[in-house]
């Protein structure tokens, strides 16, 4: 078969063949790869359906190097990540970090985590000119952050009734990142948009490992800080900030005096000292959160240290449920 029309006709007769595009073995010009094109990776054919989009703040940002596809021989939905060497600054609150996209790194991690369902699954294959294309299974489910947002419960109910189970799974997600660290790898971009809840199992699944940066003496610090941010979000059911605490619909204490020391090390408007607004947050759990505050004298050097502090807090919340 020498063109996309023939391939689509054979494998997917229901697809509107007049929309058949190019047959590609070289994915370098990803901006020109679009709906109806077929990517040939060593004899596996992927029909391109659309560009992936990143959604934040209600805005859709197309990622032209990430293609939603259908593998024609199996009919399975796949995501193909094409090579895009991007260098860009990432703002971490008051700091700016220069980040890079590294197909090589993501491919290596995909190999490392094959069969470990705490991570997105896939493989990499070079196209005809040596571009490292990553072929990813679609994670079926929803973003953890959206799931938490949609939970219909006031904070106190959420905290005692739902959070312990969420934290159990969060601990497992932390152990997944710890597994990477033990193998000398880091995730590189731990944030709410990169942790999904898998449909059916309810497991937490990490996605997107292609970020890297020039780390110095503490190669895992950025990952640990990312986990700390996620923990602040989970415990608060949102980020408690100087913007939403004064609002009438805020469901915690508002008649409290907040100081700079109560806020995140990097995000000056994000409250770390959640016990001030939610007094039922146990001291031990609050102590974990305060490791990520601007006054912390002690930082977690590895994930194990953090989990050692966090794990007992989950039972404490469960016990608190009985007493509350």
């Amino acid at each position: 078969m020498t063109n996309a029309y023939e391939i689509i006709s054979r494998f997917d007769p229901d697809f509107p063949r007049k929309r058949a595009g190019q047959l590609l073995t070289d994915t370098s010009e990803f901006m020109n790869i679009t709906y109806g094109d077929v990517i040939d990776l060593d004899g596996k054919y992927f029909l391109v359906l659309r560009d992936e989009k990143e959604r934040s703040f209600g805005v859709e940002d197309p990622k032209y190097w990430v293609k939603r596809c259908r593998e024609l021989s199996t009919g399975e939905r796949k995501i193909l990540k094409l090579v895009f060497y991007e260098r860009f600054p990432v703002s971490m609150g008051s700091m700016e970090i220069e980040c890079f996209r590294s197909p090589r790194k993501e491919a290596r991690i995909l190999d490392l985590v094959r069969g470990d369902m705490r991570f997105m699954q896939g493989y990499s294959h070079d196209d005809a000119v040596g571009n490292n294309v990553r072929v990813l299974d679609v994670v079926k489910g929803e973003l953890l952050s959206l799931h938490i947002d949609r939970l219909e419960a006031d904070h106190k109910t959420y905290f005692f009734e739902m959070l312990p189970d969420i934290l159990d799974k969060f601990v497992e997600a932390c152990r997944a990142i710890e597994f990477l660290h033990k193998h000398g790898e880091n995730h590189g971009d731990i944030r709410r948009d990169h942790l999904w809840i898998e449909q059916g199992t309810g497991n937490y699944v990490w996605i997107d490992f292609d970020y890297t940066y020039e780390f110095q003496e503490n190669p895992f610090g950025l990952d640990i800080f990312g986990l700390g941010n996620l923990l602040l979000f989970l415990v608060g059911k949102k980020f408690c900030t100087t913007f939403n605490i004064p609002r009438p619909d805020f469901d915690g204490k508002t008649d409290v005096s907040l100081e700079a020391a109560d806020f995140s090390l990097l995000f000056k408007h994000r409250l770390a000292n959640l016990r001030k607004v939610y007094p039922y947050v146990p001291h031990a759990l609050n102590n974990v959160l305060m490791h990520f505050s601007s006054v912390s004298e002690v930082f977690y050097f590895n994930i194990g240290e953090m989990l050692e502090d966090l794990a007992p807090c989950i039972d404490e919340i469960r016990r608190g449920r009985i007493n509350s």
Partner: protein
Amino acid sequence: MNPKKILIAVDASDNAARAVTYVAELLGGSTGFSITVLYIERPPNRDLYPDEASWVEAGQAQELRIRTFLQQAKSNLTGQGIAPDAVTISYVPHCQSPVNPAAQQCSIGTSIARDILQVQQQGDFGTLVIGRRGVSRAEEFLFGSVTTKVTHLAKDCTVWVVQ
């Protein structure tokens, strides 16, 4: 440990240059000291480069810059009246260096601070000199600091931190 055996840990930064200048000005004209200027190789992050060739090229450019710095450091010290045979240059390659064949002693790259302290212990250096850039707390959390870690972990030696 011999306090007159001085180890200056450098990384080709301005802070490292200041540390060298400090020692040169402090000890210029003195005798009885031996000084080693140490660099632990930290190759460019391999993942930032599209292929091996460009990574090796970046490694070569970095090595040239470092070796030039080390020679300037030696000139700075001898220029202040320290005997040339009292100054040693030590370049410890990374175990997976793109440009240097693995030496008997090489750095696995997990902690530059620990590598520096290993050299200090093995070499009987009683004085360790290191520059400090003055990182913010946030930066220290996210990326760590070689200088901070050295000061925390150092034993049986005096550490001079040159700000």
